[in-house]
């Protein structure tokens, strides 16, 4: 039943409106990481150029690793977040079940959006990653 008292016919100020349908997707982080910066990128082609892009990610938090156990990230697994890292298991050399954080960012040029996952390794080793799935959800707003 439509409640006529809740009709909104006019607003003095603009509001955010959803510009594109939700874009849902996923990718895997796998392979190896070495000393320095390790990058994974995923390109998402949107239907049209976004205005204000907002992205959420879903994936493993910093739990279940053997060493170290710094708990630098309070976010638990199985939750969505906007700013932070996906944690991936790495093994190699003296490192076993080692936590490898990939910090997530997003940029866009026109209708092409690129998700970047970056991991910096400070020690001299090659770690083999256990494949970790990352989900993403993109929403775009228009402001007029």
């Amino acid at each position: 039943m439509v409640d006529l008292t809740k009709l909104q016919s006019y607003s003095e100020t603009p509001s955010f409106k959803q510009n594109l349908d939700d874009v849902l997707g996923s990718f895997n982080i796998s392979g190896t990481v070495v000393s320095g910066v390790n990058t994974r990128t995923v390109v998402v082609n949107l239907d049209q150029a976004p205005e204000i892009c907002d992205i959420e990610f879903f994936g493993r938090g910093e739990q279940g690793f053997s060493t170290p156990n710094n708990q630098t990230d309070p976010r638990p697994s199985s939750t969505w977040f906007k700013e932070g890292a996906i944690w991936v298991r790495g093994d190699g050399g003296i490192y076993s079940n080692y936590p490898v954080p990939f910090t997530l960012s997003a940029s866009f040029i026109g209708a092409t959006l690129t998700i970047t996952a970056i991991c910096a390794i400070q020690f001299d080793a090659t770690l083999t990653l256990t494949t970790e799935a990352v989900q993403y959800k993109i929403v775009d707003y228009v402001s007029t």
Partner: protein
Amino acid sequence: MTDLDRLSHFYDLNVMKRANLPGSGIITYGGAGTDRSILVDHNLGYNPFFIAGADIFRNGIIWSNNYVNEYTESSLSGPVNMFPQLNYWCNSSQLTINLRNGDGTNTQSGSADVYYAVYLDYDTSVNPIDDLVSISDYSQDKIVYHDTITIVNDGVTTGTTYTWQQNKVVQSTIPNPYGRAALARARWSIDGGASWQSLESKIVYTYTLTAFGVVLWSLDSAISIGCSDSTIYFRTANGRHGNVTGNPPTGYTPTSRTFLIEFWLYERE
């Protein structure tokens, strides 16, 4: 004067409607480096979009994302005066907002106000009738101010041991014409608007300590936006520079960055 462009009778786009939740809360800081959270039960049964901001330093400035600083994405290890961190995450029933206290000289005490919103409709299982703005009884994100600002950050100062592991922070302010502390959405660019970064993005790069052949990483660029009743704050962090020479390593050339920030303020609750 009625602006016909703002009539919403015939709208075919979804409007961001907030779930009926309090929209604010208080987190009392724990000791240095410790986490404190508030839990918000939204019970929507699906994973919604959400936002959060916090008056991290209890001075009336609401930061809409993490507070970038000299150590953001730094390769420095060991004790430094870390700033407090705002983290938040969500599942199908609950939003968690977390403040991790800073340490050293940046340890906070007392209680911080936090603000949040959980949005309806961002799931295909929701009845599409909820997309109709004309029968919505939920709060919406009204944009109270929109502008673009350019900030030049010329990068870290050269010649001091370990400054190459830190970022230079340049903060600019403008008056808040709305007159009430608000949350912000934004996008930013370091290439004049050819490409845009989401508000929360952090660009990272590598450089080499030439005397040792060691490759390290650092932050290239990131931003934060804060807002008080009177002022809008823009923080830019720039850690970009070339390879570092010398033993100890001290010689390097910073890379200047010009930040273009487009932002939208909207009501905090």
